[in-house]
């Protein structure tokens, strides 16, 4: 160190800043090594694995009923949809289908999860850009959904409500009433969200033209979800490969050709409205009947490979089960949306400023446990 304690550049004359693993805006233990020239990012390198738990290895020794619940801990903000993907993958192997009632409940809970995840994202987005107040407004409505989840599933965040062949229990008698009451409030809140952030001059300045990702790059980097759709790449699994009866439901895939942070922001904002639309279609039309198909106590999948994908709040989650006929999977691969989205981060960040890095990370909406698995 020099005589006057100045932070030195390294031998190559590079100024490297380590952002994370403990940093307010990485939303978890992500470590970004950033090469800076003044404020401008020359190069960026993510270091992962701070909370790697090897869920894939764990699943190899768990039964087909149990491994589902480990996935709640991957993308904990869309835990429900992760569970659904695993349940669907096992159902695909067993060649059964969940009863219509279970399918409707799955979609309803899944869309509520997506809504709550996007609400949290919206709050954090404001927080990352330095506006603290939106966070509290976002949590106000998220709390309504969390309460519904608690009442029906018994848990607020990691619901673990899915089992192969349907849902674990039937919905709570209050479910429909509470969802309808909450939807009224949530729809009103969208206007407030727009007033707080969307039209703000500073907000637009911080997001428009920042973190550009072209459609070709989005496909090449394997981006999915709102990150890809913000670049105009159609990637909604609910439209491409409908599951659990999504083919019968009317909704639009939101696409925006902007490719910048503002486009991704708008896609998520409009997706929330589509989720409300889906819930409104289903909430009064939940079919009567069983909520669970009959399955054996010990599930054994036939020998073979089963790939199931779903659209989580962040993109395409793929569950790839390789079975050798035993009671637990031979190999499981989770194709997590965040892992691929993260790889595009460097492309978006290079040439941007430190303040932009925060905005870009906010709009990609990374959940680190899902990256590390």
């Amino acid at each position, binding site marked *: 160190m020099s005589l006057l304690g100045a932070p030195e550049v390294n031998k190559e004359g590079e100024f490297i800043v380590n952002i994370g693993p403990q940093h307010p805006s990485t939303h978890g233990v992500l470590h970004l090594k950033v090469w800076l020239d003044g404020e401008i990012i020359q190069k960026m390198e993510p270091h*992962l*694995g701070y909370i*790697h738990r*090897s869920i*894939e*290895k764990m699943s190899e*020794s*768990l039964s087909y009923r149990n491994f589902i619940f480990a996935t709640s801990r991957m993308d904990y903000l869309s835990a429900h949809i992760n569970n659904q993907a695993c349940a669907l993958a096992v159902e*695909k192997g067993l060649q059964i289908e969940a009863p219509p009632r279970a399918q409707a409940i799955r979609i309803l809970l899944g869309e509520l999860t997506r809504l709550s995840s996007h609400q949290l994202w919206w709050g954090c987005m404001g927080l990352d850009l330095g506006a603290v107040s939106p966070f509290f407004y976002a949590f106000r409505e998220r709390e309504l959904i969390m309460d519904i989840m608690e009442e029906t599933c018994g848990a607020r965040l990691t619901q673990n409500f899915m089992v192969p062949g349907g849902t674990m229990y039937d919905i709570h008698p209050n479910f429909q009433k509470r969802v309808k009451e909450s939807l009224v409030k949530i729809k009103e809140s969208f206007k407030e969200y727009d007033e707080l952030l969307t039209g703000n001059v500073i907000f637009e300045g911080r997001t428009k033209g920042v973190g550009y990702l072209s459609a070709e*790059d989005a*496909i*090449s*980097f*394997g981006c*999915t979800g709102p990150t890809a759709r913000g670049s105009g*790449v*159609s990637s909604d699994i609910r439209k*491409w490969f409908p599951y659990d009866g999504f083919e019968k439901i009317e909704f639009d895939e939101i696409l925006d050709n902007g490719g910048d942070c503002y486009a991704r922001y708008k896609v998520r904002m409009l997706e929330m409205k589509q989720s409300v639309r889906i819930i409104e279609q289903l909430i009064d039309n939940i079919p009567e009947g069983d909520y669970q198909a009959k399955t054996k106590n010990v599930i054994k999948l036939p020998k*073979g*490979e*089963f*790939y199931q*994908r779903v659209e989580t709040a962040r993109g*395409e989650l*793929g569950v*790839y089960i*390789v079975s050798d006929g035993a009671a637990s999977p*031979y*190999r499981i*691969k989770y*194709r997590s949306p965040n*892992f*691929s989205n*993260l*790889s*595009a981060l460097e*492309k978006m960040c290079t040439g941007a400023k430190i303040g932009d890095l925060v905005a870009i990370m906010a709009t990609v909406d990374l959940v680190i446990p899902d990256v*590390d*698995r």
Partner: protein
Amino acid sequence: MNNEELKSALTAVNPNVTFDETSEFMQAFVAPADFRKFMKAIRNNADLEFDFLFCLTCIDWKTNLTMVYHLLSKKHRHQLVVKVKLDDVNNPILETVCDIWKTANFHEREVYDLFGVKFNNHPDLRRILLDDEWEGYPLRKNYVDENMISL
């Protein structure tokens, strides 16, 4: 493109490819030597145009390691699984595809980290999830960890 058309198109690219249609996706088995040329061809062929590599992983079959590439064409909406068997379990080596699909960069690092498959010409082949000092490849079936509790 349906499976039959795909088959003939793929055979035109490489006559040594074998197919398996028992699973959900059609599977194409390629020899490691032809692998990179084949992948480049199906990415750039205008009729095939597999531009979206949505899943890249490896399976340890004890006797061999099988690399699995799930591919999708955003334009033509057809899907394909490309499999490559690596018979040398102790020192598996395959050509990289990370210049063809950028997402392969991270996924190949993950496979290297957890299975020990080395990718030739990969720009930055380091462990991605585990420590740099980690010994062994955890997702291999012969991996032993004295702290591991089996249920």
